[in-house]
């Protein structure tokens, strides 16, 4: 019982970190310019496949991760500066553009990969196998995802709280007009945030391949997960997104271990409950 609970918790933590990697970028982008980026899930999925290709080609796991993050950062910056920038303030147009991008990536990936799901053929040996402290059985790869997620969370947290650019981001999330009036260049900052958010999504996708496999369906489902987590945590709140991811991931795995038929909808039930009883989200007081 304890062993099952422990592995549920470890799986839940690992899932939380994947959730966090997709939701944090989504949340920052939404918080800063009020943009709902429908292409965000597709970047997660694309990151997974880029990393899969690079790893099969070069055999280097970390090169795959880096390539996924970097290429998604570039694609994100291109989407932002090439397509979105001209339509700022027009909510409907932004939704349409990101949906169009999502549509293109989704169907492009379908052409290349079809309905099959793929995983890394080769990962470092210390990421395979399990640790067995006492009665527990811990999967090395899940532990790796947890460590990676915590490092990224820490890095983003430091970026937001210890750098000047982070200060502008926080000011922009709080009140974008006031930040602009005080001379902060929120537009250029936003490009950077968009690129970082996309890179995080790509990294998350890359990390997920070794555990849940890369498939085209990931795009849409992880987009919806990001929606749910951002609502649970509070729209536009970074800390809320982190706690929201933890809550969502652990809840999902607890259900998966003990009440399997509720695992699938658990995230959406949580989201609906939050919207019903605490519409401002866990963090509270975030902007609508």
């Amino acid at each position, binding site marked *: 019982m304890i062993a099952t609970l422990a592995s549920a918790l470890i799986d839940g933590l690992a899932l939380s970190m994947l959730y966090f990697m997709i939701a944090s970028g989504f949340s920052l982008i939404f918080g800063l310019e009020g943009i*709902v980026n429908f292409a965000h899930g597709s970047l997660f999925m694309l990151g997974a496949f880029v990393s899969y290709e690079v790893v099969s080609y070069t055999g280097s796991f970390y090169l795959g991760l880096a390539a996924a993050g970097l290429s998604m950062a570039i694609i994100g910056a291109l989407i932002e500066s090439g*397509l979105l920038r*001209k*339509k700022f303030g*027009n909510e*409907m*147009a932004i*939704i*349409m*553009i990101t*949906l*169009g*991008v*999502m*549509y*293109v990536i*989704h*169907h*492009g990936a*379908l*052409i290349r990969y079809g309905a099959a799901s793929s995983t890394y053929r080769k990962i470092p040996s210390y990421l395979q196998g399990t640790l067995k402290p006492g009665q527990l059985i811990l999967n090395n790869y899940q532990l790796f995802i947890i460590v990676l997620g915590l490092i990224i969370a820490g890095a983003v947290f430091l970026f937001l709280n210890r750098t000047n650019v982070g200060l502008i981001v926080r000011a922009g999330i709080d009140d974008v007009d006031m930040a602009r009036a005080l001379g902060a260049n929120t537009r250029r900052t936003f490009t950077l945030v968009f690129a970082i958010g996309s890179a995080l999504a790509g990294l998350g996708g890359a990390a997920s391949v070794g555990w849940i496999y890369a498939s085209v369906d990931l795009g*849409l489902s992880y987009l*919806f997960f990001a*929606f*749910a987590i*951002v*609502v649970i945590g509070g*729209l536009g709140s970074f800390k809320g997104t982190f706690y929201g991811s933890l809550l969502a991931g652990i809840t999902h795995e607890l259900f998966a271990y003990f009440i399997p*038929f509720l695992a*699938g*909808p658990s995230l*959406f*039930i949580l*989201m*609906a409950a939050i*919207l*019903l009883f605490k*519409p401002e989200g866990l963090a509270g007081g975030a902007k*609508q």
Partner: protein
Amino acid sequence: MKTLERHLKTHSSSLMIVALFFALIPLFSYFGLPYSDILTRIFIIAIYALSFDLLLGYTGLLNFGQSLFFGMGAYATAYTLNWGGMSFLIALIFSAAIGGLLGILLSIMVKRSFKGIPFTFFSLAFAMIVLSMYQKRLFQGISGGEGGLLLPVPGILRSIWALRVYEFGFLGLLTLALLFIIYRSTRGSSLYVRIGLMVGSSGIAAIVFYLVAQHLDHLAKAATYERLIPNSYYLALTVLVAVYFLARRIVSSPVGRVWQSIRENETRTGVIGYNPFNYKLMAVAVSGAIAGLAGGLYAPYLLTVSAANVFDPFLTIKALIFAVLGGLGTLKGAILGAGIILLLEHFLNPLIGEWTNILIGVLFIVIVFTMPRGIIGELMTTGGKSFREIIKEMVG
């Protein structure tokens, strides 16, 4: 009667021409099942797109779970046909009712965050909960599992009366010309006289038709498979036209005005004395009922109803694409958008396969930049000319 006449005159001339065109084309051309098939699909999906535009274009609510209403409508039809053994028309009423009820339920649940992005997210959650429940083995009994629920094709859709009409489409054309002449030459006399004359002459034409049909019966028996036009084509077309005029009527009624006022400024609408919640509830319920009706019509077309093919989130995304491509808040736009995209898919898919969808995605982004108000929206304002004026010039 005067209002009806004015209403028809101001709103419907161009659309009636289009509807008549589609009603008659199977009778006059070598049209056949392949085309009636895709057109039926377009009519049904257009009803669904229209329900989406009614909510987003007029009330400003983006429902990201619209496919839930559509899917439950399809399931409701499957249940009634399978278990109740009832007629298709009753099944359709059930479909619309369940769509409307779900809309009311959704509105009541989302009361505390009933606008903008929070509503979008909540409607998505609502739909995803049902979708993931329907995909579970536990609920296989009601969902039909992976393979879905098989449903019988209702009798009304199996018969093909158009088979006989096809043979004397020429007479139909003559009657139409006669009706048109009567309509033009009696201008100035009262509406009752004109309608009476037209109904009377149609009646005489129908009797002539019947006699000729008996004579030509042997021709009908020799008709080949390609010439059959199933009833579902006319059923879908009729429902589409009816739903369009109903929606048109609603959005220009006082209730529709309040919807548009909520879209523009909800707080002010509330201050004037309209309770925004009640009106938004109405909008979601009406939109849900229409989407449910579309789902009900679509079910026999699919033959099997499964969670994967009627709750598909891509159905919602596509409805959004249809409505925006044609022009949000125009109703006609949603129909046009559905037609364009589905025809593109239909004709390009055999040629370039999956690349069609990439093309649609790109087209979509291009539309946002080149005609941000959609096709109808742009046409309505081209060079100070209204859409109706352009059509009038075209048809004389």
